[in-house]
């Protein structure tokens, strides 16, 4: 089935596009390093979204042209960014006061595993390597909503949406919505609740690549995303 899934599944850009549609006008948002950062590109027109980065910038914009970088103006991924009007700089304690104090409307992070109780594992595979946590453990317990963008399964085809995480946890019961390459799934009362799925995959096939029961409450919708 892995090859089949590969044929229909959304690209990272498409997952990011879908996640971007849910971000309200005026929201304060932190996007995790890497894949989640793509979401900013797909911000729907007419919405003001203010992006926060752990290293002390609120209101940053896209990357500058190559050669135009100022390396004192970077994001948490250490990539050069630019400023939008009305930006602000602040130190790390104030930056994490914003995070931990519940001032961010949304954090969108990547994941190794998400459990049906909302537990997230995204900082360590638990196998060797240098441990490195960054701001992930703060973000999951700070932002008002914590969403995940991820492939629905691992490269080996194993579920990333699971009953209980087997990898080291980043946070307990923190994720409320998951945008995957196949579906949009909410976490409610300790269960995965299907909200949207690709038209090209049957519910049973989706359930087969999901590590815990996918509940259905009323209807679910088609996950419709443009070619990108």
């Amino acid at each position, binding site marked *: 089935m892995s090859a089949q899934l590969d044929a229909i599944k959304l690209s990272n850009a498409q997952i990011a596009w879908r996640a971007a549609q849910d971000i309200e006008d005026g929201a304060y948002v932190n996007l995790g390093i890497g894949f989640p950062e793509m979401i900013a590109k797909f911000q729907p027109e007419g919405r003001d979204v203010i992006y926060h980065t752990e290293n002390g910038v609120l209101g940053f914009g896209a990357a500058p042209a190559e050669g135009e970088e100022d390396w004192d103006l970077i994001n948490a991924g250490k990539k050069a960014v630019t400023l939008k*009007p*009305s*930006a602000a700089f602040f130190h790390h304690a104030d930056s994490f006061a914003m995070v931990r104090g519940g*001032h961010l409307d949304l954090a969108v992070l990547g994941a190794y595993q998400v459990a049906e109780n909302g537990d997230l594992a995204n900082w360590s595979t638990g196998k060797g390597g240098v441990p490195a946590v960054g701001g992930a453990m703060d973000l999951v317990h*700070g932002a008002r909503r914590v969403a995940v963008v991820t492939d629905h399964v691992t490269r080996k085809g194993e579920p990333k949406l699971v009953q209980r995480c087997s990898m080291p946890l980043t946070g307990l019961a923190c994720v409320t919505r998951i945008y995957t390459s196949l579906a949009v799934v909410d976490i409610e009362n300790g269960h995965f609740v299907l909200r949207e799925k690709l038209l090209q995959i049957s519910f049973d096939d989706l359930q087969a690549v999901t590590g815990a029961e996918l509940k259905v409450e009323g209807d679910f919708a088609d996950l419709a995303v443009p070619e990108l």
Partner: protein
Amino acid sequence: MDKTIVSPAAAVADIGDGATVMIGGFGGSGAPVELIHALVDAGPRNLTVVNNNAGNGHVGLAALIEQGQVARLICSFPRSTDPKVFTDLYFAGKIELEIVPQGTLAERIRAGGAGIPAFYTPTSYGTELAEGKPVAEFDGRHYVQERWLKADFALIKAELGDPLGNLTYRMAALNFNPLMAMAAEKTIAQVSRIVPAGSIDPEHVVTPGIFVDGVVEISEPKQEEVLNREGAVYP
């Protein structure tokens, strides 16, 4: 996005009976007099107010207390040159008082804004203000556990504000204002001038807009100290 609010009356319209309201200022400096007076006009009662002091004279916080709108005051220093309004109500048993050391008050408010539910401080250890609070020893010294302080609303005074709520302050008028901005569900700032987005140097922003929900321009704000020297009374 534009957080501008047209009038002090509109700014305080959501503050209902029983709300907890942080009010910035230290004495008269940084006291959002016009917002407080709008709150007097609006008339919600049974408020819990957090401020360093208990007001002066018959304007600002003192006026709010005088109108009987404040059921409980959390502050560090309710004495002043003219604290009559508060003192009379206090001895009549009509207002409740929680005394908090000034640095602990500031830190509790910051903790509320920063998502820190409790912290330890050496301040007040062994005194009657620590009674009933957990204590702990770290590295051979004793400390008192203090809890965060949050509010439903913060009314603060700043100097410049932009439509996204970025703020600067004038001289020592910052005091509790930037902290209270962080610790309330809804923070309303009165500013001397609303400037266009992008006019405040990002390096000079003191309170980033994420902490601010509404900005109302009061172009020539009254200074509480000046009002009191003029013998002003509100309403």
